[in-house]
C-alpha cells in the first residue's frame, strides 16, 4: 500500500497522513507516533513484527480490510530502534509536532536513524567510532587527468569528526574500508558497480553500499551544501579535488536529511593526515594488531596489550594511533619524551593523573547530544565533573617538561566556570525523564524555589487540615490521599461512615472505604497543582537555557576532549611500558640498521605467565645482514620471532616504548607480511595462487626502507617447485633491494645461500631431545637447523603412535634414497636426477639473467624446466 494506490482516497485521514510520510521516508521503517505508542502499518508492520518479535494486529483504515499494525510504547522505543539499526535497517521517526486539538494533529518526520548516524548510547560501542562513509566515483575527465578516480568523505556524528580525501586506486580504497570499518556506506551508482571487485566487499567484511541520488553528488550542489554547513572555509582545501567535493557534499546533505537539521559539532579535521608507516590489510591481520586471529576478539591483540586507557575518547584515539604509525622522527620522539617525563614524576602525581582520567566521561559523545538537544540531566552532571577533572589534569601535566604534554595541556580550556554553573543548577540525582521535573537544584533560581515552597507549604497545610479534621470528627483513621483522577481526597473506612460531616462531598466509593473532598482541600489542591505546573514549566525553561549556554562552549569542549584523548593514550603507553618493562627505542632517521637486544613478543609475553618468554636479539642492517633465513621445526617459534620484530618496529613508530632490553629502529616506510595459508574459494583462487599474488605485490612495492616477513614461501605446491621459487625470490631480494627480510622456511637447501648471496644469514630455532621427547630451546642461534623434527612435533599433537612410528620408518628410507641430501649439498650442480635432459637444464639455468627476470617469469621458466624433468 502506498500513496499512489487507487484506494488512497478511501482511507482515513490519518492513514493518508501515514502514507504521505512513508513516501518521504523511502526505504526506512516509519515509526508513526500515536499517543503513547509508535505504530507501524502495512508492509512495515509485517516485516518489523517478525524482526522485533512483537505481535501483529490490525486497525481500521477505512477500507474493507484492516490494515496490518504493530507498535511499541514510546518509553521503550530506543532499544527496539537499536535492534533494527544494528541489523542494518533504517528507522524514520514521525512525531506529533502540532497542537493536539480538533482534527488530525500534525506529524512530521523528525529524524531518520540509520546505522551510520546512530546517536543513542544503546547503538554505539564506547570504544569504537561509528563511521558513515560516502564514496564517489566517476570516470576521469579528460580535462583533468590528474584527478583521482575516487573521492571519499566520512564522519562519525556521535563524536563530530569529519574527514575527506582522494583515493588512488582500489587497493587504497580497500585499506580505507578495512581501517574505518564504517557501519554505513553511501555511494553513487558508478561506485557501486566498481565496488564489486573489492576484496572487503567480496568477503562481506564491510557493510553494503547503498545508493543515494545523483543530485547530491552534483558538483555545484555539493559545493553549496558544504558552504552552508561548515563554519570554516575549507573550499580551498578541496578546490583541486572535485570528486572529494562531490563525496563531501553528498555526505553532508545525507546527514542533514536524516537528522532534519544541521549538527554544529561536526567539524572537519584540522590536522593534515601525515604520512605514516604503511601496513596493508593483511599485515594488520597477520600481526594481530587489532584483533586476534583465532576468534577475532580484542584479547590477544596488540591493541589489547597497549590499551590501558581510562576514557572512551582515549580508547577510540589509541586505535587511530595504532592504525597510523608515524614516520616523522621528531613527532615520534615527542611522544617518547612525554612517556619519559611521566616516568620521572613522583608516584603520587601519577596516582592523581589516573584519578582525574577516571573521572572524565565520554564528553565527545555528550557534545553530540548537546548539538541534537537530547542531553539528559545526568549527562550534564557527568560533563560538569569531567570538565573539573580536565582542569585538574591540565595543571598536573603542565608541571612536566614534555613539549607534547604541554601542548596538549594548552589545548584544554579552563571550563570550570561552566562546570560550576551546571553543578549549581542541576541536582545530582535528577531523573532521566526531563518532563517530570525535579531537575533543578534548590537555591539556583529564587522563583522556582518559591513555587516549590508553595507546594511544600500547601502540603503541610493539608496535613494540618487532616489533623484538625481528625480531632473534629473524632475519626481516628482518617487518611489523605492523592491520585491523578480525583486529586486530593480524604479516605474514611466504612466503619466510621456515620461520623461524616455534611461539608464532605463524596467522590469515590471503594469496597471498604469512601473518599471525600472538602472545599478547603480543593482550594489547596488548586494551589498545589498550579504551582506544580508553573514550576515544571520554569524548570524546563531553565534547562533549555542551560543547554543553550553549554552549546556556546561546544567547540572548546570538543577541542579539550581531543587533547584529553591524546593525553589518555600517552598515559596508557606509559602504564603498559611500566607494567611490562618496556624501554625507550632509539629512532634513527638516516640509518637502515634495525637492532633489537633481547626483544620479546608483546602479545605472547602477556598471555604467558611472567618471565616465561625467552627473549631474542635481531640485527638487520640492509647490507651484510639483510635477509634472515630462519630454519627450524614447526612450533619452534619462527613465526613468533618474525612477528615480534615487526610488532616492535610498529610500537616504536607509534611512539611507545618497546619490549626489549635496547632497541634501535630506523624509519620504516612499509611493512609487508606473507604468512599463513588460506584459499579464496569465492573467487576461485587456491592457496598457492593467493600466496603468489601477494608475493608479487610485495616485490613490486617494497623499497629499501621496507620490512618484509615471508613465512614458508613455496608451500602449497610440490617441494621442488616451491623450493625453486623461494630460491629465486631470495636471489631477487638480495640483488635488488636493501629491504630487511625475515624469511622462514623448511627447505634446508636454501641455507646454502649464505655463502652465495649477499646479505643472507642463517639462523635457527633449535630443539633438543630428552629421553625421546623434544624440548624447544626457543633461543635464536646462528647456523642452520639440522633436522625438521616434523615427526616429533606431530607426536606432540597427539597423532596416533602407530602412524608416528610408521612415519619414522618411512623417513629413514626416504632419506637414504633422497635425491636432495640433508647435510648441505648444493642444488645447482649436482645431479638432481639421472634423466638425459641434464645438460639442457643446466644450460638454461646458466644463461638465465636474474636481473632482467621478474618472479612471475621465473615461475614460468621453472614450470617449464620442471616439465623437462
Amino acid at each position, binding site marked *: 500500500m502506498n500513496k499512489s494506490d487507487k484506494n488512497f482516497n478511501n482511507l482515513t485521514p490519518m492513514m493518508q497522513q501515514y502514507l504521505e510520510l512513508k513516501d518521504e521516508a523511502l526505504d526506512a521503517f516509519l515509526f508513526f507516533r500515536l499517543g503513547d505508542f509508535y505504530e507501524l502499518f502495512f508492509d512495515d508492520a509485517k516485516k518489523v513484527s517478525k524482526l522485533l518479535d512483537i505481535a501483529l494486529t490490525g486497525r481500521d483504515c477505512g477500507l474493507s480490510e484492516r490494515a496490518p499494525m504493530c507498535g511499541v510504547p514510546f518509553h521503550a522505543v530506543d532499544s527496539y530502534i537499536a535492534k533494527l539499526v544494528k541489523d542494518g535497517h533504517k528507522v524514520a521517526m514521525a512525531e506529533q509536532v502540532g497542537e493536539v486539538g480538533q482534527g488530525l494533529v500534525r506529524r512530521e518526520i523528525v529524524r531518520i536513524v540509520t546505522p551510520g548516524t546512530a546517536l543513542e548510547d544503546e547503538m554505539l560501542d564506547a570504544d569504537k567510532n561509528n563511521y558513515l562513509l560516502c564514496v564517489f566515483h566517476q570516470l576521469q575527465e579528460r580535462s583533468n587527468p590528474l584527478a583521482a578516480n575516487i573521492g571519499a568523505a566520512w564522519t562519525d556524528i556521535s563524536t563530530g569528526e569529519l574527514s575527506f580525501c582522494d583515493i588512488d586506486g582500489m587497493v587504497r580504497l580497500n585499506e580505507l574500508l578495512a581501517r574505518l570499518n564504517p557501519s554505513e556506506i553511501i555511494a553513487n551508482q558508478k561506485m557501486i558497480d566498481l565496488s564489486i571487485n573489492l576484496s572487503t566487499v567480496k568477503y562481506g567484511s564491510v557493510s553494503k553500499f547503498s545508493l543515494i541520488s545523483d543530485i547530491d553528488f552534483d558538483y555545484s550542489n555539493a559545493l553549496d551544501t558544504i558552504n552552508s554547513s561548515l563554519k570554516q572555509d575549507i573550499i580551498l582545501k578541496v578546490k583541486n579535488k572535485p570528486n572529494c567535493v562531490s563525496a563531501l557534499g553528498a555526505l553532508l546533505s545525507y546527514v542533514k536529511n536524516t537528522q532534519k537539521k544541521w549538527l554544529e559539532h561536526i567539524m572537519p579535521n584540522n590536522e593534515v593526515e601525515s604520512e605514516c608507516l604503511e601496513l596493508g590489510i593483511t599485515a594488520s591481520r597477520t600481526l594481530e594488531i587489532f584483533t586476534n586471529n583465532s576468534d577475532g576478539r580484542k584479547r590477544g591483540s596488540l591493541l589489547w596489550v597497549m590499551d590501558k586507557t581510562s576514557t572512551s575518547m582515549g580508547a577510540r584515539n589509541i586505535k587511530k594511533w595504532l592504525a597510523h604509525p608515524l614516520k616523522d622522527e621528531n613527532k615520534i620522539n615527542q611522544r617518547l619524551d612525554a612517556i619519559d617525563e611521566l616516568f620521572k614524576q*613522583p*608516584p*603520587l602525581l601519577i*596516582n592523581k593523573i589516573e584519578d582525574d582520567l577516571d573521572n572524565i566521561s565520554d564528553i565527545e559523545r555528550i557534545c553530540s547530544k548537546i548539538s541534537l538537544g537530547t542531553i539528559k540531566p545526568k549527562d550534564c552532571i557527568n560533563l560538569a565533573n569531567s570538565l573539573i577533572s580536565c582542569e585538574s589534569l591540565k595543571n598536573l601535566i603542565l608541571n612536566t617538561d614534555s613539549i607534547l604534554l604541554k601542548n596538549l595541556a594548552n589545548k584544554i580550556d579552563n571550563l570550570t*566556570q561552566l562546570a*560550576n*554553573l551546571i*553543578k*549549581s543548577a542541576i541536582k545530582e540525582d535528577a531523573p532521566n525523564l526531563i518532563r517530570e521535573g525535579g531537575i533543578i*537544584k534548590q*537555591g*539556583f*533560581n*529564587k*522563583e522556582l524555589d518559591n513555587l516549590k515552597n508553595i507546594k511544600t507549604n500547601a502540603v503541610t497545610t493539608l496535613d494540618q487540615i487532616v489533623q484538625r479534621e481528625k480531632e473534629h470528627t473524632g475519626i481516628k483513621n482518617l487518611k489523605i490521599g492523592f491520585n491523578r483522577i480525583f486529586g486530593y481526597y480524604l479516605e474514611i473506612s466504612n466503619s466510621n461512615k456515620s461520623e461524616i460531616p455534611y461539608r464532605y462531598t463524596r467522590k469515590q466509593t471503594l469496597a471498604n472505604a469512601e473518599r471525600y473532598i472538602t472545599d478547603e482541600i480543593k482550594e489547596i489542591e488548586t494551589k498545589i497543582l498550579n504551582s506544580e505546573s508553573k514550576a515544571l514549566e*520554569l524548570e524546563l*525553561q*531553565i534547562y533549555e*537555557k*542551560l543547554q*543553550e*549556554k553549554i552549546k556556546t562552549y561546544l567547540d572548546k569542549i570538543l577541542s579539550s576532549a581531543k587533547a584529553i584523548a591524546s593525553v589518555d593514550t600517552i598515559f596508557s603507553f606509559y602504564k603498559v611500558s*611500566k*607494567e611490562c*618493562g618496556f624501554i625507550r627505542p632509539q629512532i634513527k632517521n638516516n640509518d637502515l640498521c634495525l637492532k633489537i637486544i*633481547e626483544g620479546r613478543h608483546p602479545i605472547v609475553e602477556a598471555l604467558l*605467565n*611472567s*618471565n616465561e618468554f*625467552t*627473549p*631474542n636479539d635481531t640485527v638487520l642492517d640492509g647490507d651484510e645482514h639483510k635477509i634472515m633465513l630462519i630454519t627450524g621445526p614447526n612450533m619452534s617459534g619462527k613465526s613468533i620471532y618474525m612477528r615480534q620484530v615487526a610488532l616492535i618496529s610498529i610500537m616504536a613508530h607509534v611512539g611507545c616504548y618497546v619490549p626489549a632490553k635496547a632497541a634501535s629502529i630506523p624509519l620504516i616506510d612499509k611493512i609487508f607480511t606473507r604468512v599463513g595459508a588460506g584459499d579464496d574459494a569465492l573467487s576461485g583462487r587456491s592457496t598457492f595462487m593467493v600466496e603468489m599474488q601477494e608475493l608479487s605485490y610485495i616485490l613490486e612495492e617494497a623499497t629499501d626502507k621496507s620490512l618484509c616477513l615471508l613465512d614458508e614461501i613455496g608451500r602449497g605446491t610440490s617441494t621442488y617447485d616451491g623450493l625453486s621459487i623461494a630460491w629465486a625470490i631470495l636471489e631477487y631480494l638480495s640483488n635488488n633491494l636493501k629491504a630487511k627480510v625475515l624469511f622462514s622456511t623448511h627447505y634446508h637447501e636454501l641455507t646454502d645461500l649464505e655463502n652465495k648471496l649477499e646479505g643472507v644469514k642463517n639462523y635457527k630455532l633449535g630443539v*633438543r631431545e*630428552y629421553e625421546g621427547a623434544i*624440548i624447544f*630451546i*626457543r*633461543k635464536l*642461534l646462528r647456523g642452520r637447523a639440522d633436522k625438521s623434527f616434523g615427526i616429533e612435533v606431530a607426536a606432540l599433537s597427539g597423532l596416533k603412535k602407530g602412524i608416528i612410528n610408521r612415519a619414522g620408518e618411512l623417513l629413514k628410507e626416504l632419506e637414504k634414497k633422497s635425491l636432495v641430501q640433508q647435510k648441505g649439498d648444493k642444488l645447482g650442480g649436482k645431479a638432481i636426477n639421472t634423466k638425459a635432459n641434464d645438460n639442457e637444464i643446466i644450460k638454461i639455468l646458466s644463461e638465465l639473467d636474474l636481473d632482467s627476470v621478474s618472479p612471475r617469469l621465473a615461475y614460468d621458466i621453472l614450470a617449464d624446466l620442471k616439465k623437462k624433468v
Partner: protein
Amino acid sequence: MRYIILPKIQILDSFIYNRIAAGEVVDAPSSVVKELIENSVDAGATEINIEIKNGGIDYISVSDNGCGIEKGDVKLAFERHATSKIKAVEDLDAIKSLGFRGEALSSIAAVASVKMVSRILHEDLGYTVHFDTGVLMDEGEIGANVGTSVKVENLFLNIPARRKYLKSASSEKMNINLLMMKMILANPDVAFKYIVDQKLIYQSDGKGVSAALVSVYGNETEYFFNINKTAPGMKINGFVSKPENSKSNKNHQTIIVNGRYVICNEISFAIHNALKDYIMLRRYPAYLIYIDIPFDMLDINVHPNKTEIKFIETKRIIGIIYHLIKDNIKAMFSNVSDIFDNSKNLFDNKHENIDLLEFSNFKLDANQQQLNVSNCLNLSISEQSNRFDIDLDKINIPAINDFVYDKDGLRLDNEIFTFKNLGTIFNTYIVIEKSSVLYLIDYHAAHERLLYNKFKVELEKLTPASQPLLIPYAFKDDINNYSIETLKKLGFDIKNNNIFAVPLVLYDIELRIFVREMASEDIKARDLTALDFIKDKIIRSACKAAVKSGDSLSLSEIEVLLKDMAQEEELCCPHGRPVIIKMTRRDIDKLFKRIV
C-alpha cells in the same frame, strides 16, 4: 622363646630426609615464596617477578635477573646442604646473605614439582632442571633470560594430609600478600612485580625507600612520620604512622635488619610503649623500621625460617628507638604554648614539615559555590507575560581580579605578639587568631587530655587518693592475683573479693562492668595488663568529666583553659585525635585562590 628382630639403624636416603626437613622449612606457600625471594636477593637481582595462583598452592613462580647459576651447578643446588653463600664456619658468625642454610631448594623439591631455569651472563643458553617430588624429570639446555627462574607447582602433592591441612587458598594468599609487603619494604632497591591469579597486585620500581613505601601504601604514605638516627655502630631509619592513622591489626609492623625482614619482640614492645599514650586500646600503629648494624652484632641462626634474631646490644637499640619516637611525636602536635610564646617567628610560613591537614585535597563543595552564583544571577519576573526571564548571561561568578587587595598584602597589627581570642564556634572549637595564623582548638579534647594527665599523675602516686565506698562491692568473678595487686597499688582497696574503696579519680566507675572486664579472657589471652585496662577507664572518666562539645564556654573560661593547656607538653586527646589545628594565612589565601 620369642624371636625379636632387631631393627637396624641406617642412614636415611637423601630422598627421605629431604622430605622430613621440608616439614620445618616449607610449612606453607608463603615460606616457599620467602625462601625463593631471599635467594634472588642474594643473587644480586634488581628485578624480581613473583606470580602465584590459587594462593600459591597450585603455582608459585619467582624469577629474577640476578647472576644466575652455572650449567653444572643447577642440579647441585637441589642437594641438601648445598649453598653458595657460606663456606667456612667463621662465615656463620657474620652472615651477610639472606639464605645460608642450604636447605630451601632441596626441601621444596621434595614436596612439589619444581622447575628451575638459570642462565649466566656469558652463556647464550640457560640450563633447566625439573624435579618432581625429588625425582629428576628433565635437565638440559634451554633459552632463558640472564638470571634464575623457579617454578613450584602442586605443593605437597605427595603428602595429601599436609595439603589438606593448608589453610584456604584465600588465607594463604593473604599471608603471601603480607609477606610481599614486607619483602618490598625490606628491599627498596629491588623492583618487584607481584601477580596473583593474573592480576598485578604490587609493583615497585626499586628507586629507594620512599618509592617502596608508596607502592605498598599508596596515598597513605602521607600519614607516616619519619624518624632516623645515625649512631656509632648503627643506623636507624623508620616510618611510623601518625597516631590517628593506626590500624586495627598488627600486620603493618615491619622491622628490617640489614635488609632482612625479621621479627623482634623486644623492639615491637618498645615501640608499643612509646606510642601507647596516644593510641586507643586495641589499635596498633603501622611502622617500618630499618636497622643497619654490623653483621657480627647479631645472630640469625636461631630458627630455620630465619625470622627470629638475637642482638648483642639489644638494650641500646631499643632505647634509641623508644626515644626517637617519643621525641618526634611531640613535634607532631602543635602546642598551645605557641600562642603565648613570643619568640616564635610566625611570619615564616614556609615548609611546615608536619602538615596536619592536606589542603591540596580540599575540594570546594558545589553547594557552597551555589551561594555565590545564585546571588549573582539576575532573575526578574516579568509581570505582564507571566513568563520568567532568566538571563544566564548575567551570571557573574567573581573572578580573582574583582577583589581589591590590601595595600600591603598582610595586615600588620600592633599586637603581633598577643593573640586574639575570637570565641567559640559550633560549641566545639575555640578560635584564636595570632598574627598570621588561625588556631582552632577542640576544647573537649583539650580538657579531656588535661583531666587524663591529672588522673594519671594521681594514680601513679605511691599512695593515690582513695574514695571509700558506702557499701562495699562484692564480686564473684575470678580476677587473678597479679591484677589485684596492681589494682591495690592504684588505690583500690580489695579484700576477699570485696571492693572497699576505689581511686578518687575513678569515683564514678561502673564496678560491675569493670570487674567483669578484669576477670575476662581478654587480660589473660591478649597480654593486656591491668594497667592498660585502667588506662582505658581513666580515659572514659576523663571523657565524661570533661567539658562536652555542645557545652558553651565563656571567654574567661576559655582563657583559663588555655592557660592550663599551655603548661602541657604533648597535646592530643587520649584517643590520638589532635587537640589543636593551625592554618596559616597563606593556606587560607590559597583556598580563595588569592595566591596560586
